């Protein structure tokens, strides 16, 4: 049955008719419903909303305040756990930022200074050289000098310390769970929806429960970060393990490996580069969380961003935000180089011991020298304030100049978009009767992917309806839908350019990394100054973020096309344009479709940010729940976001299958 549905695409006329019907319903459903007294089919009655919100809140309070294992309560157990995690966290903070302290609070005395700025820079440069050579060493050097030069050092080290601890925790847990998923297929099936939720429920939705359970401070921030950053590590672990060639496994079985030997000696080493992709994702996700982590006691660069913007100091916010980007680029390039590093054949030399390890020797020497020297020459320990430079006043001036000279033009653009795109789509989405939308999901799910998909879609959207989040969900869908569309229109050509034009790809990579890790808040303030708060500003913010996976996957997809086929195209006399449109793009299409699902995820993850500029969507619900400390509402709205993500992701996946099968 399912097969039949898949292989025989329905006539286009059917879908066209559905679309036309939806359009007319969006406009006439309200009067029609009133005339037939079927309003309840159009607007879900408030009285029917299932009040699970307060029950969730109550359950949460019970869990936190009373749940007990007899000898100790759940909360005590969690507090003990966070006490354990605090040990490495404090060590990292003391080693990088504050110095080893004796005593606490304002009585604390520094008994050992932190690693000096020179030492940290040299260590990273040396690691860069080890991983890839001089070019990377220079990148590391430039990045860390930027942090010192622009006065971001102390905060950057706080942020680096929390990443330094989060990373091994996240990687270890992710690796263990990934191996478990690989080993037991039942566990894999159980984890799949859990991972989807972890990735899509906005962090704000579970921030307050985490604070209650783990206490206020860097550890809570770390746990929130790990929850968010874990799924890609697990995904990549299972993917990498699956990709190990069968010959290797057979070889292992032949020589009589035990299961644990097989894992340790054969599977993990051969999956190493795939695993490192996961590590890289954990780093990038942790840096995404810097702002939120700073709200619950992690401090560092994220806090600087919030504090500057609260004063409308756009320049200071921009510099702290760029410091996050610089840190991200340094760590990203380093971890990727380590992932793809081919160990050189070991040279047997008879040089004196330290010269065999020149880089380690250099690092130890610099650490020792700056530690000792720092006692007399302050500049060796901390970068002198007098040497710091700042561009902060120029950013504010720049925004002011644009505001004074181009506001009218920008406003015309905004009004054009509002009138022709945003408002009509919004009216359409809000006008659709809920019963029709759920019916469409069921029908579309059935036709595209069989009854399972239909059931899933109906149930998840049913939850949104029953809990009274319908209208907010429709506004979220409209905002994300329009943004994804724009992101594709902008991102796909840029991705093609990045893949086709030499030299452009490097620029594009930095631009994409910047868009992904620069805290949205930094550019949201100038956007609001130029476009006022409202849907258009939200659209800009979401599109800027959602364009990242579009560019990445397009460029990546085109890069993967086999050179033989391109060669063949050239032989039969295709022009460059023909090669692109007839060979490369069709072959890259499946990969680009994978990117679509990521784009939707990225767009949805921005909903909480759009709430800042006054949209009345699910993000606003999550945000309101946070400020009213209402864990029930937060969780419901958060789950609604996740459900939209899951349903659209599944639909996009089957639609991609369809398209590639057809083309």
């Amino acid at each position, binding site marked *: 049955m399912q097969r039949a549905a898949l292989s025989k695409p329905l006539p286009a006329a059917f879908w066209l008719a559905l679309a036309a019907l939806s359009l007319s319903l969006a406009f006439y459903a309200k009067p029609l419903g009133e005339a037939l007294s079927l309003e309840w089919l159009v607007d879900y009655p408030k009285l029917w909303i299932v009040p699970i919100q307060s029950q969730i809140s109550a359950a949460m309070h019970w869990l936190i305040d009373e749940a007990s294992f007899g000898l100790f309560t759940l909360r005590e157990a969690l507090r003990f756990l966070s006490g354990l995690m605090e040990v490495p966290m404090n060590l990292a903070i003391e080693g990088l930022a504050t110095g080893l302290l004796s005593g606490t609070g304002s009585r604390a005395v520094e008994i050992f200074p932190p690693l000096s700025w020179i030492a940290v820079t040299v260590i990273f440069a040396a690691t860069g050289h080890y991983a890839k050579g001089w070019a990377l060493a220079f990148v590391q050097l430039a990045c860390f000098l930027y942090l010192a030069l622009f006065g971001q050092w102390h905060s950057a080290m706080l942020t680096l310390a929390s990443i330094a601890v989060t990373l091994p925790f996240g990687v270890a847990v992710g690796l263990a769970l990934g191996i478990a998923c690989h080993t037991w297929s039942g566990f894999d099936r159980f984890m799949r929806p859990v991972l989807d939720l972890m990735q899509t429920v906005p962090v704000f939705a579970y*921030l307050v429960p985490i*604070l209650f359970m783990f206490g*206020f401070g*860097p550890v809570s921030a770390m746990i929130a970060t790990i929850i968010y950053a874990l799924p890609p590590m697990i995904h990549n672990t299972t993917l990498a393990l699956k990709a190990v060639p069968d010959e290797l496994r057979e070889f292992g079985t032949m020589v009589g490996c035990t299961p644990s030997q097989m894992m340790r000696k054969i599977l993990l080493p051969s999956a190493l580069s795939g695993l490192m992709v996961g590590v890289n994702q954990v780093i990038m996700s942790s840096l995404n969380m810097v702002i939120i982590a700073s709200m619950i006691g992690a401090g560092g660069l994220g806090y600087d961003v919030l504090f500057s913007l609260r004063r*409308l100091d756009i320049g200071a916010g921009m510099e702290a935000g760029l410091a996050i980007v610089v840190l991200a680029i340094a760590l990203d390039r380093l971890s990727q180089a380590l992932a793809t590093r081919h160990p050189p054949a070991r040279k047997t030399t008879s040089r004196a011991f330290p010269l065999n390890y020149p880089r380690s020797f250099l690092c130890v020497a610099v650490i020792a020298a700056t530690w000792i020297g720092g006692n007399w020459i302050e500049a060796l320990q901390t970068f002198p304030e007098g040497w710091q430079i700042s561009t902060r006043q120029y950013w504010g001036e720049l925004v002011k100049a644009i*505001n004074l000279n181009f*506001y009218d033009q920008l406003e015309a653009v905004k009004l054009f978009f509002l009138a022709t795109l945003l408002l009509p789509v919004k009216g359409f989405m809000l006008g659709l009767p809920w019963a029709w939308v759920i019916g469409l999901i069921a029908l579309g799910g059935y036709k595209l992917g069989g009854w399972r998909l239909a059931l899933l879609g109906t149930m998840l959207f049913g939850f949104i309806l029953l809990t009274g989040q319908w209208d907010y969900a429709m506004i979220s869908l409209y905002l994300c839908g329009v943004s994804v569309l724009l992101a594709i229109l902008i991102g796909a050509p840029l991705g093609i350019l990045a893949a086709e034009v030499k030299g452009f790809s490097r620029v594009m990579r930095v631009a994409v990394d910047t868009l992904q890790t620069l805290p949205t808040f930094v550019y949201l303030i100038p956007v609001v100054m130029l476009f006022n708060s409202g849907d258009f500003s939200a659209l800009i913010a979401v599109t800027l973020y959602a364009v990242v996976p579009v560019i990445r996957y397009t460029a990546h997809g085109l890069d993967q096309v086999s050179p033989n086929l391109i060669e063949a195209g050239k032989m039969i006399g295709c022009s460059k344009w023909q090669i692109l449109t007839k060979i490369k793009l069709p072959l890259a299409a499946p990969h680009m479709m994978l990117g679509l699902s990521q784009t939707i995820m990225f767009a949805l993850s921005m909903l909480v940010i759009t709430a800042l500029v006054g949209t009345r969507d699910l993000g606003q619900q999550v945000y309101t729940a946070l400020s009213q400390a209402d864990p029930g509402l937060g969780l419901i709205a958060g789950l609604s976001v996740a459900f939209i993500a899951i349903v659209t992701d599944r639909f996009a996946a089957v639609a991609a299958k369809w398209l590639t099968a057809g083309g």
Partner: protein
Amino acid sequence: MNSSHNRRPAHWSVVGGSTALLAAMLGLASPSSAESTDPIKLTLNDWTGQHISATIMGKVLESKGLSVEYVQADYIAQFAGLASGDLDVAMEIWDTTAKQLVADGVATGKIEDLGGTGMKAREEWWYPSYMKERCPGLPDWTALKSCAEAFSTPETAPKGRYVGGPVAWGGNDEERIAALGLDFEVVHPGTDSIIFAELESAYQRKAPIMIWGYEPHWLNAKYKGEFVEFPPYAPECYTDPAWGINPDATYDCGKPTGMIRKVAWSGVKEQWPTAYDAIKNFQISNAEMSEMVSRVDLKGEDLNTVVDGWIAANSAVWQKW
């Protein structure tokens, strides 16, 4: 189980850390002495005035021989930390934004209200002075009846556009507009940085703008402008439709002013009695605070220097706390 036994300083030394850990593992509780030597954790939220209050308090406590630690925390999220004793004192909790959270916390017995700071929060509709020429009769609210359009933007015209506060702040502005018969549309940004970004933008262009302004803040130091004068608030105005100009509607008046109070974890009294008294007695005026805030935010002076100046000039005041 007294939660004070679970307290951990944020920055452990290695040695101190492992002993505390050991104690936690064995469930040991150190007998509480008269005044704990653990640091008192004061929260730092994300606005300058709050940093000044916290730093003044911190310096005063230090001068009394207590150990102080500052922890960066979100204004709302800090309540979870205060309730669990992870954080000890929040120096500026505004009745206008967090009255309910304080009431809820006090009701559970985990949070203690340590009374007003001496500062009064005022919030109301606010406009820059240049709007007075376009809407004569301001600051009296009746002027708005006839010149809503002067405050409009293309998206809201002919209605005026009012940039209100985040939904979570409440404020009842939609009801106020209806009750007073004004022709305004409310926009709710999600955070107050956005309100001031809108003001900054409009102010640069001398464009129409009406925002939710509040004091103490650098608003009136940086920009020329004033609050709209609505019929003064009375509690009955919010509950009794018959009260006020519009006999059929509530909210036909301005917004209430509110205290800015100090809020603490309920264990502070027992653990640091001296500090508890000093925090309770902390008092500062709106004028003093506004002056310090504008020196830091607008003139770019160092916050610690400004606070030290206040400490030096007012020793007679804080010695008594």
